[in-house]
């Protein structure tokens, strides 16, 4: 009986010690891990989107919570004006989710630029969505509030050859970005006013 109790006590003690320690470390590294993920996953795309930014869009960011989901927006200062925000949306691709970072000019509601962040598409075909700058460049200047589609579906985006599904996924992500932007615009404008990079 005594041994039984000892076993329970030791295991309980070890488990709670382990849980406590891990919770403590998680609490203390969460912010840094978030920064690292941003820097290495979204950073390169953001940097190429905002080549001319006068601030660091990675650090000038804000979040909006909607439907229990937290969305992060990156603010860029261009030509002295802070009216361009970038955010990430996802579309279902051939090999999984395709992440698209969409930058939008709040004053004109037009896409300033877009770039694929993460994907697991076929190398050489779908992966061109990220690797071929001409593809993403087509999004610049498109009105974000209208659905964005590939030419085959009646839109204006030329699909990548051999990667129709991926091209559609990117368009779906862009259209979703439009829907999200539409519903969050008042809040985005509100937050932009308070940010002075």
């Amino acid at each position: 009986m005594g041994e039984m109790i000892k076993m329970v006590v030791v295991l309980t003690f070890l488990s709670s010690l382990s849980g406590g320690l891990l919770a403590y470390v998680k609490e203390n590294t969460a912010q840094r891990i978030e920064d690292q993920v941003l820097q290495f996953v979204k950073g390169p795309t953001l940097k190429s989107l905002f080549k001319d930014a006068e601030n660091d869009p990675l650090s000038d960011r804000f979040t909006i919570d909607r439907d229990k989901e937290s969305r992060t927006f990156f603010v860029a200062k261009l030509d002295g004006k802070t009216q361009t925000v970038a955010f990430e949306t996802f579309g279902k691709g051939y090999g999984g989710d395709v992440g698209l970072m969409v930058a939008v000019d709040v004053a004109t509601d037009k896409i300033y630029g877009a770039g694929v962040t993460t994907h697991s598409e076929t190398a050489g075909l779908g992966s061109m969505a990220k690797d071929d700058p001409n593809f993403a460049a087509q999004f610049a200047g498109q009105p974000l509030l209208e659905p964005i589609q590939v030419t085959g579906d009646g839109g204006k985006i030329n699909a990548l050859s051999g990667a129709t599904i991926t091209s559609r996924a990117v368009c779906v992500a862009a259209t979703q970005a439009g829907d999200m932007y539409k519903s969050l615009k008042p809040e985005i404008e509100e937050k932009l006013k308070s940010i002075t990079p």
Partner: protein
Amino acid sequence: MAKSVTHEFFKGFWEEIAPFRLVLGLCPVLGVTTKMQFGLGMGLATTFVLVCSNLLVSSLRKVIPPKVRVPCFIIIIATFVVLVEMLMQAYTYELFLQLGVFIPLIVVNCIVLGRAEAFASKNGLVLSLADGLGIGLGFTISLGALGAFREILGAGTLTLWGDPLLNIATYFPGFQAFTFMVQAPGAFVCLGVMLCGMNMLGQK
């Protein structure tokens, strides 16, 4: 049998060097050694877990009831593995991306559990520390050597933390990368060749 700290420390480098002599923990050994730095990073992460778990197991060895010792060891090891995973994400994110799934897999690395069961649970704190450090560093060196061997043959380069240390093409302009070496079967071949070399050296 009297045990000396130096013996326990240095046995990990030759006599009981884990991947070669004991042929243990081969999953990360074969999986991550496509480049020297991945091997070294993985080895150091394992060393950290090994040293911490050895210390904790050794200090708790009189408290842990024999019947539940394995679950206790696993809790201890898993805690340190998750810890090292979070720390790597926070401080060496690039390396973490490369090592990926192999970091959580340290939990089931038989070297770590093996040292806890066979050594730390029977020996004192100082000896366990020496044992953990020795085996861990031996593991790191093995992974680093295997990684260097494969990287030189397979890619013709040697990089450490992103800085190229060596490029074969400067010495042998006609060098063709032996891509087989960075693929999975190349790992087995390299390991076999190195094991063979070690056995030849060890033979009287």
